[in-house]
């Protein structure tokens, strides 16, 4: 009896909720995508991992117990022995007597910075080139197609080179530094963003609502900015999230190869990994910890990116 009445009550409540929703404002596609994202467990896991990562990298450096570059326990390092986990050093010491925990926390900031800035560079330059090419090819007629051809051949050249090789070449030309890593990793993702945005824009340019806007008498630049670009952004946003993951890995790879940050006082996970390889048989945690950090962060970005792809896919819309 009580169960039945409760069920009935719930049903009525739900109906009331639906009825109340009727005079709300309309739900845009972005809002709907966000609703779907919130219901996806993968997205929540990814968001939690990333949230922790961001908090650690923003707040962490102010709270670490020791300065990451101070060789406070230099005297305890002997050949064949590095002190491990203990009360005052949660992750043990590194090979020259610095606190590994403090270095991990401060290193998170560098890793996040490199990942975000590199992706931003790729996103900005790639979207600019792709957007111009896409608008020119989709709406620009004969001359537009010529512009598109020139831009895309340039992009194809970038795309033809293996990404890590391209990044290494750029880093080698500009000299080893943190900025170099960002530019190198960013350049690698430029062609991906450019191709994606251009392709989506050309597809959207052939849609009926663009024709409808033309027949309304809307000017072409306005059509490109108000209709074509907003409808082409979804794959680019997803790609940006996924690129964050690969950017972090690539930045770590460049640091590992010695082309990254040459300032030893600022820890960075890739560089820590490179340093640790010589001591892998006596202190494997020195390699495992930064590697785990890189993997978990990249996984978080990938989970969120995949969930966003699902949420934004128009074919999965109910």
């Amino acid at each position, binding site marked *: 009896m009580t169960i039945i009445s409760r069920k009935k009550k719930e049903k009525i409540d739900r109906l009331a909720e639906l009825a109340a929703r009727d005079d709300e404002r309309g739900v845009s596609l972005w809002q709907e995508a966000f609703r779907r994202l919130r219901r996806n467990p993968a997205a929540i896991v990814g968001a939690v991992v990333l949230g922790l990562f961001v908090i650690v990298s923003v707040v962490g450096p102010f709270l670490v117990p020791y300065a990451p570059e101070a060789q406070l326990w230099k005297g305890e390092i002997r050949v064949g022995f590095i002190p491990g986990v203990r009360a005052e050093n949660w992750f043990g010491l590194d090979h020259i007597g610095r606190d590994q925990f403090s270095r991990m926390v401060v290193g998170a900031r560098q890793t996040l910075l490199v990942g975000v800035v590199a992706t931003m560079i790729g996103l900005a330059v790639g979207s600019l080139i792709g957007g111009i090419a896409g608008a020119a090819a989709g709406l620009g007629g004969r001359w537009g197609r010529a512009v598109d051809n020139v831009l895309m051949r340039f992009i194809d050249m970038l795309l033809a080179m293996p990404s890590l090789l391209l990044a290494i070449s750029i880093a080698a030309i500009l000299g080893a530094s943190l900025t170099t890593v960002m530019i190198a990793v960013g350049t690698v993702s430029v062609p991906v963003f450019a191709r994606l945005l251009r392709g989506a824009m050309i597809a959207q340019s052939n849609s009926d*609502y663009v024709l409808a806007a033309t027949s309304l008498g809307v000017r072409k630049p306005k059509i490109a900015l108000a209709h074509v670009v907003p409808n082409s952004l979804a794959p680019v946003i997803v790609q940006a999230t996924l690129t964050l993951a690969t950017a972090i890995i690539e930045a770590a790879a460049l640091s590992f190869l010695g082309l990254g940050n040459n300032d030893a006082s600022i820890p960075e996970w890739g560089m820590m990994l490179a340093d640790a390889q010589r001591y892998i048989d006596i202190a494997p945690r020195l390699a495992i910890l930064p590697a785990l950090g890189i993997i978990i962060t990249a996984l978080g970005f990938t989970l969120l990116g995949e969930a966003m792809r699902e949420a934004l896919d128009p074919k999965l819309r109910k």
Partner: protein
Amino acid sequence: MTGSDVLVEVRDLKVHFPIKRGVLFERTVGHVKAVDGVDLSIPRGKTYGLVGESGCGKSTLGRALLQLTPPTAGEVSFDGVELTTLAPGKLRTMRKRMQMIFQDPMSSLDPRQNVESILTEGLQAHGIGGNRDERRKIIAETLDKVGLPRWALSRYPHEFSGGQRQRIGIARALVLGPELIVADEPVSALDVSIQAQVVNLLDELQDNLGLTYLVIAHDLAVVRHISDIVGVMYLGGLVEEAPSDRLYTEPLHPYTRALMSAVPVPDPDVEDRRERILLAGDLPSPANPPSGCRFHTRCPWAQPTRCADERPVLREIGGSRVACHFAEQIASGELRPHKVSAEIVRPEGEGEEPGVVSAPSEPGSFV
């Protein structure tokens, strides 16, 4: 009919799409003649219905008329203004006088725009209604005209039903106060129950606002209901044009006769006895249309003389315009239809015989 009564005059309009080959150095290997020499005129305040099977070029004709697809040759004059040679800026300002309604209301509405934004866009583009309040007033009036509630303004297209979406599409066309509306299959994407509502809405709007329509459709009943004049297209050309009732009761062109005989009659006795003309074969490729009369390859009345080598022009026969050399003889019964055998086209690389599918010899052989 005097000159000033004609709103749109199309003369010898051609739209040819080049077929391109080659990756870097494209060369044109041929043309798809989607519209190949069409003459028609639409009187002000009337509805011109355009019918024909899929791929005959009727949609392309509608788009070329509005200069949404650039015509290859020919003239389109709208209220005395020649559109094909008009400068792009002038053409843009002319657009507010001629609007379009699309077939699929979902794909013709930007999914990221709410209804208010969809309706405001055209007003902004032409600077109609100086401030926000004035625009709101125009939009509200338009919503009333098409029978949409006010709360629709903040909603997005995906939150509406098909019929309501088409009303949004109609409102978008109406908000600029056009004189001509080209409706490209306005109801064929809708449920039958909704079709009547939308057709009646279009009718009502024409009565109240004095609109001129070019309605493109393949549904003969819809066209008959809504049109004053009907043009029948076949393979890029107009084969017959007549006042609506006359076309349906007295079709003159063999193709029109075949079309009309395909419409079922709701009386079973009549339906059983009536003569039906079945056309053999498919629509020929518009890239390589037949010589002479485009229809001679499928025409049950085709004659050995003239049909294959002389393209008939539209000529007036008792109120209709027909493009057939032998229309009078066919109408009087002097010429009788003969059988046209279907030309069998096999896909390339297929064997001569259809493969025989045999059952597995042993019951367990699939395991």
